[in-house]
């Protein structure tokens, strides 16, 4: 079958999709977006977390056909997503109702021009210098919340969504919101530090 949907503001079309494929498989193997991870493929680890029409979901549990006509944000688009949200006064695309800027339809999310500009960056890295990151991404690096990094994309999407809803979370709030994301390296302590840091920096800006 053919599946049409929007990923990180860009229209995508996947052909020859077998009905049994998950959204995760289509992202990783058909669209060249392997940022969403495949640690368990049974909805237990959260490493494949993406936003589907704004809602965090385990993309391994979403059948590819279910995303027809819908909007997906993955870790690859998180920096742009956060930037756009900040530009809209804290509202995620489509999250606060009403038309988007530029007169674009809400379902389009990113403007066509932005979408055309977006792409995964090259493969040689001047690491950590001059890359524009979302606040939660920067906080994960700064706090030492990244070790092997396999859980990181899912945690970033989940944590970013929580901070969107709850800009001043308590520790108990953070633990509750991230309880669906397994990490085996860090013992979670520096992930807590990172989310607290992102919240504090967000508070300073406002």
């Amino acid at each position, binding site marked *: 079958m053919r599946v049409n949907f929007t990923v990180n503001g860009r229209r995508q079309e996947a052909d020859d999709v077998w009905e049994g494929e998950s959204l995760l498989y289509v992202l990783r193997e058909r669209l060249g977006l392997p940022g969403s991870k495949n640690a368990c493929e049974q909805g237990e680890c959260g490493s494949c977390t993406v936003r589907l029409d704004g809602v965090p979901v385990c993309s391994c549990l979403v059948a590819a056909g279910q995303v027809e006509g819908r909007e997906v944000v993955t870790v690859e688009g998180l920096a742009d997503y956060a930037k756009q949200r900040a530009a809209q006064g804290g509202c995620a695309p489509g999250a606060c109702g009403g038309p988007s800027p530029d007169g674009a339809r809400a379902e389009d999310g990113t403007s066509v021009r932005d979408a055309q500009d977006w792409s995964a960056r090259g493969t040689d890295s001047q*690491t950590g210098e001059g890359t524009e990151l979302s606040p939660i991404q920067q906080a994960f690096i700064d706090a030492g919340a990244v070790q092997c990094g396999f859980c990181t994309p899912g945690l970033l999407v989940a944590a970013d969504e929580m901070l969107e809803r709850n800009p001043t979370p308590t520790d108990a709030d953070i633990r509750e919101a991230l309880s669906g994301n397994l990490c085996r390296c860090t013992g979670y302590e520096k992930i807590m530090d990172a989310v607290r840091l992102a919240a504090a920096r967000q508070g300073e800006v406002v």
Partner: protein
Amino acid sequence: MSAKPIPAASARQGGAPVGTPTKLTQGSQTRGGVGESTLRPDGTLKVTGEFAYSSDMWHEDMLWGQILRSPVAHAEIVSIDTSEALAQAGVYAVLTYDDLPTDVRNYGLEIQDTPVLAHGKVRHHGEPVAIVAADHPETARRAAARIKVEYRELPVVTDEASATAPDAVLVHENRDDHHVGHVPHPNIVHRQPIVRGDVAAARERADFVVEGEYTFGMQDQAFLGPESGLAVPAEDGGVDLYVATQWLHSDLRQIAPVLGLPEDKVRMTLSGVGGAFGGREDLSMQIHACLLALRTGKPVKIVYNRFESFFGHVHRHPAKLHYEHGATKDGRLTHMKCRIVLDGGAYASASPAVVGNAASLSVGPYVLDDVDIEALALYSNNPPCGAMRGFGAVQACFAYEAQMDKLADKVGMDRVEFRRLNAMSQGTVMPTGQPVDSPAPVAELLRRVKAMPLPPERQWESSEGADVRQLPGGLSNTTHGESVVRGVGYAVGIKNVGFSEGFDDYSTARVRMEVAGGEPVVTVHTAMAEVGQGGVTVHAQIARTELGVAQVTIQPADTRVGSAGSTSASRQTYVTGGAVKNACELVREKVLEIGRRKFGTYHPAWATAELLLEGGKVVTDGGEVLAGLVDVLDGESVEVEEEWRHRPTEPFDLRTGQGFGHVQYSFAAHRAVVEVDTELGLVKVIELACAQDVGKALNPLSVVGQIQGGTIQGLGIAVMEEIIVDPVTAKVRNPSFTDYLIPTILDTPTIPVDVLELADDHAPYGLRGIGEAPTLSSTPAVLAAIRNATGLRLDRTPVRPEHLTGTA
């Protein structure tokens, strides 16, 4: 299920596959030498989703490999019929034992007892029997399911009794390995006794004797990145293999003979590794992917799902431990006798080395001159067990720390003071006869961890009632504080660092300095497996400190440079860090040589002063600048590749266990605070504080991260993690994250860490390997806290609710 994916946005036609690792460069904005909390060079790639893990590899026209595994634990294979599987549309190859290309058909870390594909017999649930390549993963899975294998089941060996009974079934007939001569039974892989002093005489001095029988469950590494990789057949008949592993050259040594290729035609590159913890020390899909790629002439990708991952790597040895300790009235330990039986499962893997560790570290960090120790590993039809963080020392620590609490109570001493009184220190002689010749601040670590402020009581109470999220049972809303009891427990442990028992434990580093873009830059190339620990960060820091540059490039790890040894045994910062430091020093000498040749006549300090490289310049130890590195190099580049070794060790005597077996020791202490709902048997760990000596923290942020992560893996085996193997069928019952639980962020407490830095003069920068020690003492500390809260004995781990409610 059509084959063709849409080419990825960045897919390259032909050439290298998508996701090929590339160099990491921290440019001139980055500062940070040894001792600073420099940020990871791969951090940005990892938070943007661009970092390519082995399961992210992609190649045009690639096929997917699938392994068919045994559904039973022990059986003869009567027949295999692959015809129906081969006939499926989209299937390119189905291979069994009969298709293996050479006479080398087994592999193994130390003993080559593991079949690449089962030969006439399977010895454990999940053993690989056949492999399939197809154009879609689901096609491959369905084809594998159509391979018809007829099994004739055999009796299973599941424990010591069934392994060593007079009529025991032999797991391996006709053993010819180097341990078979000294083991009492062919179902024992290796046995290591250690005898020192006179236990009988020392026992006479004891006022109190405490015995205990302890059980340690089977733990899984549960790294999140599944076993995976991509094998690409090459025009020269060789293969390029991109894979997640802990030791490229050890893999290579095992892979090449099976393929019938010289090692230089199996070109391995480390792909992104999603955690390891020992579980990637053995091969998983490496040979299978190469076989399928060479057979089909197409790139083959294999990615295990989580179910398969539980069968696809070795686990931590479950153990039965019997201990006897004695103490005098004034609290001095008199003697110790112990017997540690580890279940190694169907294949040897790292069992012999785990036995050596369990035996030599069975005393713990205590002064004990009269000991009688025996450790052994069984062959059985249970899942194979091998390396996992802590490696034999973890099981022993769980038992001896329970013994310490029991003894302290008998003597009537405070449990921490009892430990401090008996704590080893620099100069203490190990049961192996080896003196501890660097700081061993055991008593100080215990003092520090006890001195940390305790978390306040009844934290769940607020003006709006109980916050159930902070209580045992959490949002299940099972208590608002009633029947909740607090307990506090302490433990301390000792772990060896590096490969022991005479192993030639070296690493190799290639370091180049040149001028690029008008500034001096350094490139570091090693085969070290970065599995998340932060070795890449530390290598750049070492290069900055030693060579005075800002910009450092870390080359991808591959087999084009010499072996770095394994990313295990807490050894990489010590050994590959040591190799990088050594290579940098040699580069510095060459650079200074060039400088002396060019500029020596202009300033006498070139000949007389101690010269350093700092801030891109050659300076004297007095701080005087002699020349810029750009001017010294002037277009030249300086490159060195050199092996580096720590001081040698020696094997343990097979009868007495005596020998200078270990390079270095590492110590950590924990205090656990738990709250237990005694009615339901639910445990919430409130805080898990750790004090650890790290010698020198090369990167304090990473050091603390390692300690916290290790601590929580210890919490996991204390209260939730266990692979359940059916005692009758030897089949694994819970191979999923639904049924095998690892700690979530809700199960995890705050983890305050107190880092002590007492230099080990034998090690580079005085550092101490740190990765494993925190995994030892965390488990017994949590158990001690639960015992303290409930008054129960609790001689097994993990503790489950039924053990706390009398319903087990």
